């Protein structure tokens, strides 16, 4: 290639910048992530072996699988909030937390020191600002696979932001391979999901998920999860 002229160089640089902006502004939609996660579960090793069967055999197997699924489903009736098919996953909550705030930051609840005036049922969001640099910065509410999930965002000086999401129900799937850290009898699952660092735990029949960009690190998230008002 001949040496580019200054004008050509300037044009190429403008193009590079435009592409960089487009890349920085674009993330995979939540719906796509959920479909991919469902595919990953559906196309696991057992499913892959089934795919190798002859079509007629596969149809027969499908009948058996559906029947077994119905029996198993009937057996699960009465299980409270436990990772039901089609319900939210931790990954979906993490992605909800990665979206921007759409409402103003909740303030401290004067009637409940140590908590914000924001809650899902009787599980309130903590007021970190009393003893840390994390300040509530906004909130949003999503329906994740049909379940209402509320997120409060906390910022600290330097630009870091964590998302604290609460949804009714426990034992949500989506944190395979998580490291478990126990504190005061509660299991905190620590993992990477959706490109973010995640801590998930259960309280009062709800699942709480703290997530942040990987640069924040699990060491910064765990004290927020363990927080005692």
């Amino acid at each position, binding site marked *: 290639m001949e040496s580019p002229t200054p004008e050509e160089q300037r044009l190429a640089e403008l193009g590079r910048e*435009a592409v960089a902006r487009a890349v920085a502004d674009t993330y995979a*939609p939540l719906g796509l992530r959920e479909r*991919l996660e469902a*595919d990953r579960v559906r196309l696991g090793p057992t499913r892959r072996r089934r795919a190798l069967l002859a079509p007629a055999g596969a149809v027969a197997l499908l009948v058996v699988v559906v029947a077994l699924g119905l029996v198993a489903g009937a057996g699960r009736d009465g299980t409270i909030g436990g990772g039901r098919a089609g319900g939210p996953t931790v990954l979906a909550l993490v992605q909800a937390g990665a979206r921007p705030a759409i409402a103003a930051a909740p303030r401290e609840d004067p009637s409940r020191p140590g908590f914000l005036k924001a809650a899902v049922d009787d599980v309130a969001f903590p007021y970190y600002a009393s003893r840390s640099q994390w300040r509530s910065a906004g909130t949003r509410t999503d329906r994740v696979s049909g379940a209402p999930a509320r997120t409060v965002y906390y910022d600290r000086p330097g630009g870091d932001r964590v998302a604290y999401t609460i949804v009714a129900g426990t034992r949500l799937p989506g944190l395979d391979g998580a490291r478990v850290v126990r504190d005061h009898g509660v299991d905190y699952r620590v993992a990477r999901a959706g*490109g973010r660092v995640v801590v998930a735990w259960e309280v009062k029949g709800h699942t709480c998920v703290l997530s942040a960009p990987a640069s924040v690190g699990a060491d910064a998230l765990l004290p927020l999860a363990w927080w005692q008002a």
Partner: protein
Amino acid sequence: VSDEGRPLDPQALGDHVDRLYRAAWALTGRREDAEDLVQDTFAKVLSRPRFLRNDDDLGYLLRVLRNTHISRHRTAQRRPQTTAMPEDREPLDPSGARRPEEAVEAGEVFELIAALPDAFRDALVAVDVVGLSYAEAARALGTKEATITSRLYRARARVAHGMDPTRGGVP
């Protein structure tokens, strides 16, 4: 490591969704098609165990994405063409981009990339959209680093020219 290479961990695929989605948008020029392309790509990868010899995960996934795109494109050309009605269109950016104008610009840029000649487009997608190094991009696309450099430069200039055709200087 066995002779057949390193196994691709299906659990790690989720780490690459954003990059592959951007790449898919840049290949197809349409957000709706990008979602379908990424889903087809993942389904193909998950359909059987995969073993990587020389590729990193992302380079390998980009190659599968590109091949899937080419295959889908050929199949689509054999079908009657349809056009989505306006009411079928979703909001520009459900993923949470900060401002509407940013989403518009991103869509415009990806559309311009998709319209580039294939060789230029592939180089730009590999390096600027997916974030591969020149060496990784050359390996993923089966070409030389110097070729990637040259194509990337021209592709960037064409994108800038497409955003403002009054600009001169397209190499």
